[in-house]
């Protein structure tokens, strides 16, 4: 939204929306990303964008109104992170956040397979949130010390929000695990279905060798991630899943069959009406 939007309606009185509040979401201005830093920023931006889109699918469909709002809040937090990362990534190639979100094709997305997995039932969504939130928390915690001031500033804001997402997922893990036989059965099914996609989050890529001061190596995040996951699963009286490992390859643009339809819905409006504004 670029202009102030004003609407004086006899029904709703004077309503004023300003561009200022939306701009607040950008935590750091200035600086041009290098090609390698931009590539890494795409990992983070695309993970958040795709997961935000998935969570948005719950709106009006969550089990209770209150949970509907909670999931939408988390989705909007993630969308804010995605905007900051994509905007910064775009500085390397003179593209805007919208260019990157709406005009890249599936093979140009760098998101991990886990975030594109379908919502499934509520247990599947919670298990996906559980893994992703713990993973993002460990990244942002480390990324605050990045030598790149923009990445460091975005991480500084995002870590507080992801901390809440982590808590939300932990609380639901406990309730589903210790609730009823049915909720526990659904939770263990979801853990078995989704855990194969966790390994990909911790795979180092060649670009990580060139970003030693900029970004934490994915493999080095794993011990802290596993400790956090194990502590919650212990309370849940569940074992850490130890089964299959998914193919991965999201960081190289290889995705599962689930990303295409998600992007079609995300991008259709911008592509049918290029340059459209509210």
């Amino acid at each position, binding site marked *: 939204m670029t202009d102030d939007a004003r609407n004086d309606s006899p029904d709703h009185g004077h309503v004023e929306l300003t561009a200022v509040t939306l701009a607040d979401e950008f935590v750091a201005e200035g600086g041009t990303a290098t090609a390698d830093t931009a590539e890494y920023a795409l990992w983070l931006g695309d993970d958040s964008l795709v997961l935000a889109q998935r969570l948005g699918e719950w709106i009006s469909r969550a089990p*209770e*109104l*209150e*949970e509907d*709002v*909670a999931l939408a*809040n988390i989705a909007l937090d993630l969308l804010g992170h995605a905007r900051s990362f994509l905007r910064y990534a775009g500085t390397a190639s003179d593209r805007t956040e919208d260019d990157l979100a709406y005009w890249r094709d599936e093979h140009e997305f760098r998101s991990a397979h886990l975030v594109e997995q379908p919502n499934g039932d509520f247990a599947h969504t919670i298990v996906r949130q559980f893994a992703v939130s713990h993973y993002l928390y460990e990244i942002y915690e480390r990324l605050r010390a990045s030598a790149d001031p923009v990445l460091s500033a975005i991480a500084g804001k995002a870590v507080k929000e992801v901390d809440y997402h982590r*808590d*939300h997922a932990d*609380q639901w893990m*406990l*309730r589903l695990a*210790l*609730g009823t036989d049915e909720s526990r059965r659904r939770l263990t099914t979801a853990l078995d279905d989704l855990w194969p996609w966790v390994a990909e989050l911790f795979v180092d890529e060649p670009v990580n060798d060139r970003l030693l001061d900029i970004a934490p190596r994915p493999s080095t995040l794993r011990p802290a991630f596993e400790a956090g996951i194990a502590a919650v699963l212990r309370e849940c009286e569940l074992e850490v899943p130890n089964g299959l490992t998914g193919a991965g390859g999201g960081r190289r643009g290889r995705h599962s069959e689930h990303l295409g339809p998600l992007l079609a819905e995300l991008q259709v409006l911008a592509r049918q009406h290029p340059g459209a504004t509210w």
Partner: protein
Amino acid sequence: MSAPGASDSAHPETWPLWEVFVRSSRGLSHVHVGSLHAPDETMAVRNARDLYTRRSEGVSIWVVPSEAITASDPDAKGAFFESPAGKNYRHATYYTASEGVKHL
């Protein structure tokens, strides 16, 4: 999970109702802002955070099971709330300050 609302066995499929109180800043009282559904007290605080403090409204949240609140009877309005009418002596301004009292 020990849920205060677990006693609501007549409607086990519905989350119990909670009343939410938010303190907007230090030094002020918690003020009732509304109600919400949640499965237990821990989730009620989180839902309250999402529903009632989205625009930086608060620094503290209380939640109370709605069924724990005992309310006055709306039909007893006369007996409860109309008695003070005409009893102006209950207001400080009813009294005139004596001339001899300093610093009042």
